């Protein structure tokens, strides 16, 4: 396992070098900070997405769900839009980006807890209904967001426009400082939970009898998931199937039920996908389609296959 993780790290380094150098023009003093911040943001997003997905899959006890599929990032965008809608763009512009982020991320965490904790508890009794609810909730959030955006003046609209769709090429670097802090704390806390999470993969009953406080762990994981989703959505917008794609890949590359390994490999693969995919698609192939659309296609197909695989007649 260790050698595989090292390989992944090496590949990630190569991707980073490629990202920094290929097609670079102008003096290094400009290129390095310009691309460097974007690179840092991508790595951050990669780890935030993979960690939140792993957490969510473990507490919901299945491998086809991700926070995005359940509508978490749609919820974030909706809360952001709702804030502009109800507070008004002017008040909003006056605030610093950091404060806006802190407020919306906290609101998002509360809303996610309220909505998804009851939903999660019904997972073992009716998983299909829970997933369906999540997807429909996501659709509802998106429609509500669209609705509020149309109610807002076009000028105010620009404040939130950036958050509504995924864009790995243009990243909101203004938030990088606070995002780094939040992401590191979140991933760190998740890392500390890794042994409890290992126990949870054995099943509810086993976890309880081994002395893991199920509800507490679930709540903690849900809060971390919400915060990490807020970070990644604030930086690059909703990511749809990316989490599912990279965590499923990670389970293939490091097929071992230990969160200590899974967190690392999923994080590395996630960063590789973002940075490598970005480099290859946009710099080498000059594809006009953004990486997010390609990931949507691949991840959507994977989701469909996973659903069908579990339920063939």
């Amino acid at each position, binding site marked *: 396992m260790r050698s595989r993780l090292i390989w992944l790290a090496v590949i990630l380094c190569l991707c980073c070098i490629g990202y920094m150098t290929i097609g670079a023009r102008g003096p290094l003093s400009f290129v390095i900070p310009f691309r460097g911040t974007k690179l840092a943001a991508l790595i951050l997003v990669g780890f935030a997405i993979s960690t939140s997905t792993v957490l969510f899959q473990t507490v919901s006890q299945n491998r086809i769900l991700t926070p995005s599929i359940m509508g978490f990032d749609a919820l974030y965008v909706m809360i952001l839009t709702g804030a502009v809608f109800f507070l008004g763009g002017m008040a909003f512009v006056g605030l610093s980006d950091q404060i806006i982020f802190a407020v919306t991320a906290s609101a998002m965490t509360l809303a996610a807890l309220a909505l998804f904790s009851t939903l999660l508890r019904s997972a073992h009794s*009716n998983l*299909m*209904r829970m*997933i*369906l*609810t999540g*997807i*429909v*909730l996501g*659709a*509802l959030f*998106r*429609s*509500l967001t*669209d*609705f509020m955006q*149309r*109610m807002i003046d076009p000028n105010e609209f620009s404040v939130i426009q950036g958050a509504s769709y995924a864009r790995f090429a243009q990243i909101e670097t203004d938030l990088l400082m606070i995002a780094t802090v939040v992401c590191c704390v979140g991933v760190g806390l998740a890392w500390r939970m890794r042994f409890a999470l290992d126990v949870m993969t054995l099943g509810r009953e086993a976890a309880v009898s081994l002395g893991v406080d199920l509800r507490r762990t679930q709540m903690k994981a849900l809060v971390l998931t919400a915060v990490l989703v807020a970070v990644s959505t604030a930086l690059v917008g909703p990511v749809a199937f990316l989490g599912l794609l990279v965590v499923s890949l990670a389970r293939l590359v490091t097929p071992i039920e230990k969160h200590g390994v899974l967190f690392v490999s999923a994080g590395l693969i996630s960063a590789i996908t973002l940075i490598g995919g970005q480099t290859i698609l946009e710099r080498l192939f000059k*594809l*006009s*389609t*953004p990486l997010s*659309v*390609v990931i*949507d*296609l691949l991840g*959507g*197909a994977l*989701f*469909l296959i996973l*659903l*069908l695989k579990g*339920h*063939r*007649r």
Partner: protein
Amino acid sequence: MTRWYWAGGFALAFLSFISIFVGVIDLSFGDLWRDPEALRLIGISRFPRTIAAVIAGGTLAVAGCVMQMLVRNRFVEPMTAGTGQGAALGILVVTILTPQASIFLKMSLASVTALVTSLGFLAIVRRLPPTQPLLVPLIGLVYGGLIGAAVVFVAYQADLLQFISVWLNGEFSGVLRGRYELLWLAAAGAALTYFAADQFAIVGMGQAVTTSLGLNYKQVVLVGLIAISLISALTVVTVGIIPFVGLVVPNIISRLFGDNLRRTLPLVAMMGASLTLGSDIAGRLIRFPFEVPVGTVLGVVGAAIFLWLLYRTPRYA
């Protein structure tokens, strides 16, 4: 039952009346006599728009109802299970290959791709265990989303993004005389399904019952799918994807009046038309003088009703 037909017809007439007089250009009932411009406005814009909403809503509700019978699951509808997205894919491909193609050609190819994607959905559903009824709509949503992603992918490559945003979120603001008439074909298609209403009701009882009653199961299913695909394609070509009408309306009608389609299909059509027209009017009024697309209004209202249905009917929905 007749009482309910009257009620539905009255509601629809009332909404149509409102729809004629609501819009950016101020129009009052009295203007009809005083102002010749008023009649022109109604003829060119308001009337077509009203008719388009009525037909699109009514036919989509009928298509949803038929699809629920064919798939034997109450939580599916063409616009969220790949048929609508398939139609959008077809239009996109025609637009790329032959930009000068007539609207009729676009519509025909869109119907064909819509049929292919619905057949694909049906083939997948056949393999699912009957013990998991909620898996069917779930797969449908993901399948539809996947084809939608394919549409976006192709559109990016061909630099046609602004085109598809029109098809993927339905709205009626672009409906003018000369641009909506294809929808009458959809209305004709939905009317024809009424003649086969009994057959669809029988198919809803399963393959064994259908065969035992002397019907050719595959043939009825295929006819139903063709009707659904045609209706979806025509709607997508003229006004874009309108979600959830086909899902919530048949569910509500079935809850209230049962599944005897010969009796309930007219109600399904009237309620679908009223819901869509009502949402369009609401979209025109909420942010006057700007408009909120009907797809967005129904996205909110429909998703909320869907969730309610999901929890009202625990399992054997």
